[in-house]
Every structure is written in structure tokens, then in C-alpha cells.
């Protein structure tokens, strides 16, 4: 024990020093976390939208939610496949998929909040987390 403590301190110091040289978050880890968070937000938006439409017997609202959220699901699924593969093509396409998801979820948020319902904080948190990828889409597609 007497020898282990200095060894532990030195080992932790060495690990800490090497860690200090690479403070960046791994891109794949950030991508995975962003897709998982956006998916939670998508589920929350879909659940609340369906619940409000059912409670108000408002099929137009349900249809609007469906027309916004189904394409977002398709982009989420493609983004998840991109994370699972994470090759050069997947990394190139990922930011624009995230941008599509953010735009769709933002539309769904406005639609739900116009009914007086409120989406949970996790939706805004997911949008904020994933927003770091969106500018990379603008750079790769020429700023559309």
C-alpha cells in the first residue's frame, strides 16, 4: 500500500497529462449522443402531439404532426445508420441529416406549442447539443 499510493499518483498524473493534450470530444461519440438525444426529443414531440390531437379530437393536428415527424424519423434513421457505419461517406452526410432533423423538430415544436402544450426541456437540450453539426452542412453544400 505504501508503494502503491505514489505509483497511483504518478500513474494518474501521467494519464492526466496525456489527456490534457487531447481535450476534443470524439466526433463519433458526439454524433451518437446527438442522435440518441434527438431521438428522445422526437419521441416526446410525437407522443405529445398525438396526445393533444386525441384529446382535442383534432385529426388535422395529427396529420400535420405526421407530415412533419415522419420525414424527421427517416432522417433520424439514416443518421443512426451513419453513426453505426461512420465511414467517410457517413461522416460527410451526417451534418446535413442533423440539420434536417433540427429543422423538422423545430417545426414540430412550434406546432405543438401553438396548441398551448409544452414540450419537455429535453427537446431544447437535444436541439442545442446537435446544433454543433449543422454549420458543417452549410460548409459542405456551399452554404445553402
Amino acid at each position, binding site marked *: 500500500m505504501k*508503494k*502503491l499510493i*505514489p*505509483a*497511483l499518483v*504518478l*500513474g494518474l498524473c*501521467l*494519464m492526466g497529462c496525456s489527456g490534457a493534450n487531447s481535450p476534443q470530444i470524439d466526433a463519433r461519440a458526439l454524433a*451518437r449522443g446527438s*442522435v*440518441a438525444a434527438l*431521438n428522445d426529443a*422526437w*419521441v416526446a414531440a*410525437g*407522443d405529445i*402531439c*398525438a396526445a393533444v*390531437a*386525441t384529446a382535442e*379530437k*383534432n*385529426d*388535422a393536428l*395529427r*396529420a400535420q*404532426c*405526421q407530415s412533419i*415527424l*415522419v420525414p424527421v*424519423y427517416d432522417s*433520424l*434513421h439514416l443518421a*443512426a*445508420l451513419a*453513426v*453505426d457505419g461512420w465511414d467517410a461517406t457517413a461522416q460527410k452526410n451526417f451534418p446535413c441529416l442533423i440539420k434536417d432533423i433540427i429543422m423538422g423538430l423545430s417545426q414540430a415544436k412550434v406546432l405543438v406549442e401553438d396548441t398551448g402544450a409544452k414540450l419537455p426541456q429535453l427537446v431544447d437540450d437535444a436541439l442545442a447539443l446537435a446544433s454543433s453539426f449543422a454549420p458543417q452542412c452549410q460548409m459542405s453544400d456551399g452554404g445553402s
Partner: protein
Amino acid sequence: MSSTLLALLALIESALGEFPQLLADIESLIAKVKGNSVATPPPPPLAPQIEAQDKAVLDELSKPVGS
């Protein structure tokens, strides 16, 4: 040679004697850390999880509600 100097030499000798053990402890610690990182399984694929989680919501959104 004074007794203080002798004591100091004994202390240095003792510290040097422990140095190889200290290195061995560090190597063992690093090997454990590396071993743990290698043993960590890869995360499960994300796409099937999303399909499974979202199916119920997609079904719910596709059902017309009475107006």
C-alpha cells in the same frame, strides 16, 4: 563521516531500492487500465434501437382521431 550523512545515504539507498518496485507498480497499473479499455465491448448499433423505440409513435401518428 557524520551520522547524519550516513543516515542520508541509507535513505537514498532505500529509495533507490524501491524504485524498480515503483516502476513495476506503475506498469501493472497501466496494463490494468489498457486491459479494461480493450475489454470494453463496442456500443450496440443505434439504428435498430431507434426503429424499436419509434415504432409505437409512428403507429400512433398514423391512426386518425375522431373529429
